[in-house]
């Protein structure tokens, strides 16, 4: 029974935010919240850990920097040095100013794309994936809170009603 959950639907983000605080004060476990848009302060109210994607962004940026330097050094200096605008490419350092824009763009490119891919993988999202969203209303204008039930259904329902939930349901096939 530990996996059984209860769905509470809200129609306002401020009401939802207060409800989250209330529910957590009463030591209930919130499994997930579905919202049509990012609600400011919701992650803190839910007590979610801070994201670590910033660290990955930095690492990806460093990888991009390294790849770009290696690449442009091979292309412009080692493999086929050319005389462009009276600046013969025989030394990486002396031609560095011309390479900076390329290196910068590659750094941004790597950081941005790898970060998006990481985010998708971490969120288990991929093209043509079936939506996990329990209620399509949460893509429109409603907010849904999924709370774990531990045999305290009545108490929890009463609490959620009090916090301003407009509809409370218990999905039957959740365990399957």
């Amino acid at each position: 029974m530990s996996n059984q959950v209860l769905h509470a639907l809200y129609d306002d983000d401020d009401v939802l935010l207060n409800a989250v605080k209330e529910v957590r004060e009463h030591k209930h476990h919130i499994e997930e919240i579905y919202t049509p848009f990012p609600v400011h302060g919701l992650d803190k109210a839910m007590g979610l850990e801070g994201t670590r994607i910033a660290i990955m962004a930095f690492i990806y940026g460093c990888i991009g920097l390294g790849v770009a330097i290696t690449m442009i050094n091979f292309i412009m200096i080692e493999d086929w040095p050319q005389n462009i605008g009276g600046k013969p490419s025989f030394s990486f350092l002396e031609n560095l100013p011309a390479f900076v824009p390329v290196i910068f763009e590659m750094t941004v490119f790597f950081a941005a794309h790898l970060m998006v891919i990481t985010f998708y993988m971490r969120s288990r999202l991929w093209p043509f994936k079936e939506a996990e969203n329990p209620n399509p209303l949460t893509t429109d204008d409603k907010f849904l809170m999924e709370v774990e039930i531990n045999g305290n259904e009545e108490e929890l329902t009463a609490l959620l009603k009090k916090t301003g939930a407009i509809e409370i349901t218990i999905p039957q096939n959740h365990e399957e």
Partner: protein
Amino acid sequence: MYTFPNKLKNIARALMILGFIGLVFGFLGAPKNITEAKAMVATEHHGEGHGEAAEHHEEASEAHAEDTHAEEAHATEAHAETAHDEGSHDEHLLHQLQNKPWAALYVAAFFFFMIPLGVLAFYAIQRAAQAGWSPVLYRVMEGITGYLLPGGIIVIVILALSGMHFNHLFIWMDPEVVAHDKLIAGKVAFLNVPFFLGRAIFFLAGWSLYRYFSRKFSLAQDQATDISNHKKNFRISAAFLVFYIVTESIMSWDWIMSIDPHWFSTLFGWYVFASMFVSGITAIALVTIYLKSQGYLELVNDSHIHDLGKFMFGISVFWTYLWFSQFMLIWYSNIPEEVTYFITRIEDYNITFFGMVAMNFVFPLLILMNSDYKRTNYFIIMAGIVIILGHYLDVFNMIMPSAVGDQWFIGVAEIGGFLFFLGLFIYTVFTELTKAPLLAKGDPYMGESERFHY
């Protein structure tokens, strides 16, 4: 109300006295005539750079045989040198050495003047954007802009003294030079002393008028029952920003770029703006953290510091973008009259030129990248001090190479100038802070600013 603590007052006074002594020392140490100048250079082992012009060329081209563009520039330099006789070369050296204390004074005066000017622009942006996060900082910004008028008057006095030929900072002010220089002669309609000083006074008057009225409306808003003062402030701030960006550009050409009257850069106004903007924001952060540590500014929380940190980070990157854009285009096109600007900086000012990039870009980039560090006062102060010193070096690099050439040194006069104006800045700013409550309590966005969190 804030009272200026005696301890800080004494520190400011001590800085001014120390700095003044340093400046006097610098002025007394300047050579009076050519013999003295030559003797000074001989004892300082700068000799090899000032030998026979032909020798100089040979040496230079040997040392830079593989560096084609450097060689080219040396060729033109050497050519210029051979064109003159030995006497004019010595006179040039004398002028450079006589310029040294003046340039030290001017660099520091301009640097500390540009901080309140940058803060004023930042303040006007907050007003014009009707920002909700920053009203708790308005009085800090108004306090810093209190230095605008005294600092500006000092700079204009120095410019006027240059116009009266007390120094040779601006060579186009010398009719003798203009007579032999076709390029400068073509610019005389714009670059002449009366028009130059007239512009300077007009700019400072415009900025000071905005500062006066915005401060007046801001104080009036504290007592007001409606928001008419706030609205007036919004309107004059928007108008000021238009006036500011035009006048700031012209100011940067006048007061800095014209020291090199042959050279020009089309993004110079932006470049100077970025420098003053980031210095100003850093000054706001440092003053705020200081006041907060003294138990004032109760409503400022770490989210406000975080936002200032973001601006310090962002505008540091913006400054680097402009620095690099200016450098790369000139480096790539390699047009002699443009590229000499960077050749002198890279050859004679290597350490300050690249050191400045490390201080203004690499250090803040790495230190302030982390979100948590931007909320920690210690990191903001550390990054802030490096940014302030880095942008002092930036102004140094803009003015010194044309004023004193390779005779530069960060010595008693330079440090003295920095300390003197730092003391004067602290004294003026904190005196201004005592004149009004530190909370602009009548601001309609105060509630939002108070609850501001990240």
